[in-house]
């Protein structure tokens, strides 16, 4: 249904709009929950540290790409003395098997979790078929 696309061992050179290459930052695969209801496909992805304006979602044909830019930077005047997690960006690609109604996609970001509701296109919805009496 929602198949994940992995590009293993492939580093895409990232450039900013000005063509400058930013300092390398780790890119994480955000853990995600995906479920399907009768009308929608819902994706919940954990991207702590990403502000709503840092999220970039694209759907090209059936390829859904989620990107999140972590805005939390260094604490000025503070020094990191102990670290269990690193600040980085998030990226994940899924291939959807259903046709999606692109105009009604809804995305919200709350408490670092992206909630993406992808409504199935009319043609892809489950339909109940009535038996005709003969």
């Amino acid at each position, binding site marked *: *249904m929602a198949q994940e696309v992995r590009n293993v061992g492939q580093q895409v050179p990232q450039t900013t709009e000005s063509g400058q290459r930013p300092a390398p930052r780790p890119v994480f695969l955000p853990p*995600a929950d995906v479920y399907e209801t009768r009308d929608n496909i819902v994706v919940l992805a954990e991207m*702590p*540290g990403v502000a709503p304006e840092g999220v970039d979602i694209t759907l090209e044909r059936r390829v859904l790409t989620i990107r999140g830019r972590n805005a939390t930077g260094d604490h000025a005047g*503070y020094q990191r*003395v102990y*670290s269990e997690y690193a600040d980085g960006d998030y990226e994940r690609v899924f291939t959807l098997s259903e046709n999606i109604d692109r105009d009604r996609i809804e995305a919200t*970001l709350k408490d670092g979790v992206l909630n993406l509701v992808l409504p199935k296109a009319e043609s892809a919805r489950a339909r109940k078929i009535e038996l005709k009496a003969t």
Partner: protein
Amino acid sequence: MALSEFPRLGFDPFVELRRMQSEMNRLFSGFTPTTRDFPPINIWLGDNSVVVTSELPGVTAGDVTINLQEDVLTLEGARRPKQEQDANWQRRERTYGGFSRTVQLPFRVDADKVQARFNNGILEIEAQRLEADRPKKIEIRAG
């Protein structure tokens, strides 16, 4: 079979074993241990203050309790799954349930001056060093 280590035999008796080994390596390459402590914590040290940040996606302020005793900070709470009816789950990678983390801060802090805030799923706790514990410069009297 051009790289066979047994040219005289004409075939490599271990080729199947090596294939299995590489297959197993491939299978487990995507495996990450899930026993990592949750939530992960970073500690930042200032002049007379300390900041503890923690990644808690999907957790709201009401879901977490912060306890401070002398220099020991405890985070406790629970992550609750979203209740959805008639959902056909395709993927469940997020983890849910209770959590508890205890960290010792580098110094005793003033419990009245602790500030905690949530910012896009990251909990940030800022605490000030106790006035009495701050290092003092001692002047040497000329004798």
